[in-house]
């Protein structure tokens, strides 16, 4: 038994969860969904074990390279999913969200991502690494769910306008998108912006440097601020809200992923 075996078991459990969720979606029976949820939960437990294993083995937080970070984001996404399912009861969005988790796990296991744990460069040796990365990624997991429910909203809304029946009502999807952002936004603000500034001040001597990753996290924050203001003050709902939530998630994705590969800056290590 080692970390990569645990990772593989986790991956298999998530795939099984996804298969059962889709079986539930197409068969319209309740049982496969319950099985799917159990697999996802079992996956979360094994995944937690894998992350602890990694931490003990490497001696540092399990998100210091792309492989670790993707795996952690998948873990955070499942955690977010379980919270959302428990609070908002929106099982039919589960199968689609699981696809994001599968994509993250697949990308993490791809040969493009070096798996070996390397010792930490001096800049990353700080407990702020734990706080900054984990809280930010958890926030982004909620944005990811809002992204899925926003896309499903657009589909459901188009169907309802044609008078067709939908599995999930557009209204419910719109409300869950908002509530996911209401969780994700404070988390992202705390982890990404506030903890990021505190750490930057401790490590680089400057709480803000307009480094591309900083700038893109601010852009992400602005897009969700726009979502909240148009919705709460100007009463936008539905399609326009959904589009902003989708753009917001894409901005978060670019901050997380694109900046590392397309732009250079201080955050060059992760």
């Amino acid at each position, binding site marked *: 038994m080692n970390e990569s075996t645990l990772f593989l078991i986790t991956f298999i459990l998530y795939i099984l969860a996804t298969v059962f969720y889709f079986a539930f979606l197409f068969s319209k029976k309740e049982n496969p969904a319950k099985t799917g949820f159990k697999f996802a939960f079992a996956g979360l437990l094994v995944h937690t074990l894998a992350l602890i294993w990694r931490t003990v083995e490497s001696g540092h937080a399990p998100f210091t390279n792309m492989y670790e970070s993707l795996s952690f984001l998948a873990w955070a996404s499942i955690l977010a999913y379980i919270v959302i399912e428990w609070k908002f009861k929106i099982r039919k969005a589960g199968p689609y969200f699981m696809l994001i988790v599968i994509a993250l796990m697949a990308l993490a296991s791809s040969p493009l991502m070096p798996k070996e744990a*390397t*010792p930490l*460069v*001096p*800049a990353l*040796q*700080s407990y*702020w690494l734990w706080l900054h990365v984990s809280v930010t990624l958890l926030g982004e997991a909620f944005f990811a769910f809002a992204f899925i429910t926003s896309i499903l909203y657009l589909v459901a809304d188009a169907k309802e306008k044609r008078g067709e029946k939908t599995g999930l009502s557009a209204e419910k999807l719109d409300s869950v998108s908002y509530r996911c952002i*209401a969780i994700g*936004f*404070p988390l992202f*603000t*705390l982890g990404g*912006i*506030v903890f990021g*500034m*505190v750490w930057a*001040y*401790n*490590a*680089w*001597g*400057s*709480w*803000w440097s*307009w480094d*591309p990753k900083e*700038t*893109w996290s*601010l*852009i992400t924050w*602005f*897009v969700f*601020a*726009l979502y909240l*203001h*148009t919705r*709460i*003050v*100007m009463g936008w709902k539905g399609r326009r809200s959904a589009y902003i939530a989708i753009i917001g998630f894409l901005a978060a994705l670019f901050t997380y992923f694109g*900046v590392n590969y397309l*732009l250079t800056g201080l955050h060059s290590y992760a």
Partner: protein
Amino acid sequence: MKSLFKSLSSVKLAIVLLIIITAASGLGTLIPQLRSHDEYFARYGQWANLFQRLQLTKLYQSWWFIALLLLFALNIIVCTLDRLSPKLKRSFRPRVSVEEKEIAVLKIKEKLKKHMNLDSARELVKRELSTKHYRVRETQEENKSFLYARKRVLGWFGADIVHLGILIIIAGGIISGIGGFRWNLTFSEGRILEIPRADFKLKLDKFETEYYPNGSVKDWKSTLTVLEDEKPVLTKIVEVNHPLSYKGYVFYQSSYGWDWTSPSVEIWAKKRQNPSFLKKMELKIRERVPLEGEDIEVSMLEFIPDFVIGDQGQITTRSLEPNNPAAFIEGWQGEEKIFSGWIFAKFPDFDRIHSEKETDLTFELKDFKASQVSVIQLSKDPGVNFIWAGCIFLMLGLLFAFYWPTREIRMVMEGIGNKTEIIAGGIASKSKDAFQSEFAKITESIRRSK
């Protein structure tokens, strides 16, 4: 003036500004910032001039970006104040008495009848409300009693607190931008440096680099001592992520290097015809050292850590890392120079020694030592405490706005002899489901209690 205020108080302006600032910020990540003109010219050709004139190459420091941020701040101030006064009035001097039909239009409402007189019914209702942490206000009118109960009033102000936090952060940014500065101090061990604009000095007692077993850097540690009037007052080991703070100045471990101006090298002298001949010598810059047993003195004129021949044939160093160390040595016999040239640590067989006089000697650069220097970044950031205060307001505001929704319950109680009729209605700014169940619990326990 009025129309200016009106446009500054509009949310539309806020949204337009938000979009422009977002787009401009994004643009600044596509164009590399604060590089040289030559680099921009190489990258963008003729466009480079235009980009520089529009300050796109120092976008975040440009006057127009800062003007946008200031306008945005002004917009936030006006918007927030504009919405604040009615909210303040509602929270400090709420209207207690209502028409019954105002309750009738609410979504969450209930009608109750109690077999008790108005006074005891009122006491009962107030007790039930206060067990759920509502603050109750009341007025009376003949046989009618009006109750206004409310809790979590901060929820109304969540967004305002967020805005206040953002304004404090922007203010902190302005203060940092005007009053702050940064400076790099390059030290070798034992050196004392004056701190610009400060009345103390800093001494580097010790500098060490720790490595992981695989050779990558684990940590840089600088032991720094603060000296006031030449007396030590504070000593701290500064590492990355562990800066030293003193009198508003913060000292960070920023970088490291070697002091290549005064290295000491070890050179081996050999003879081509005599393999058993080997003399080792220690050389420092411009120091003539006699070669044992020979009538020759050797000196080193120059040391280069990363030897490279530039475009114009000039000899220079590519970096400050010892990637290709080279030393320029000369050999003297009395006042007569007999050879001179470069020797390389990495290429012992490749020397570029020109001999003025026939000699059998060859030289190898075997080892080199230079003292390591620590680069300490000093920064003074007078706005930083504003930033942390702003962040606290920002987070508290978000929590109040999303998770501390204000709940209001209004009641009209009418006493008819020994009976009291109660009409109750409730409003919550968010999470209406949770409020509805709380409202139902309250009305249920009013109905049941005696």
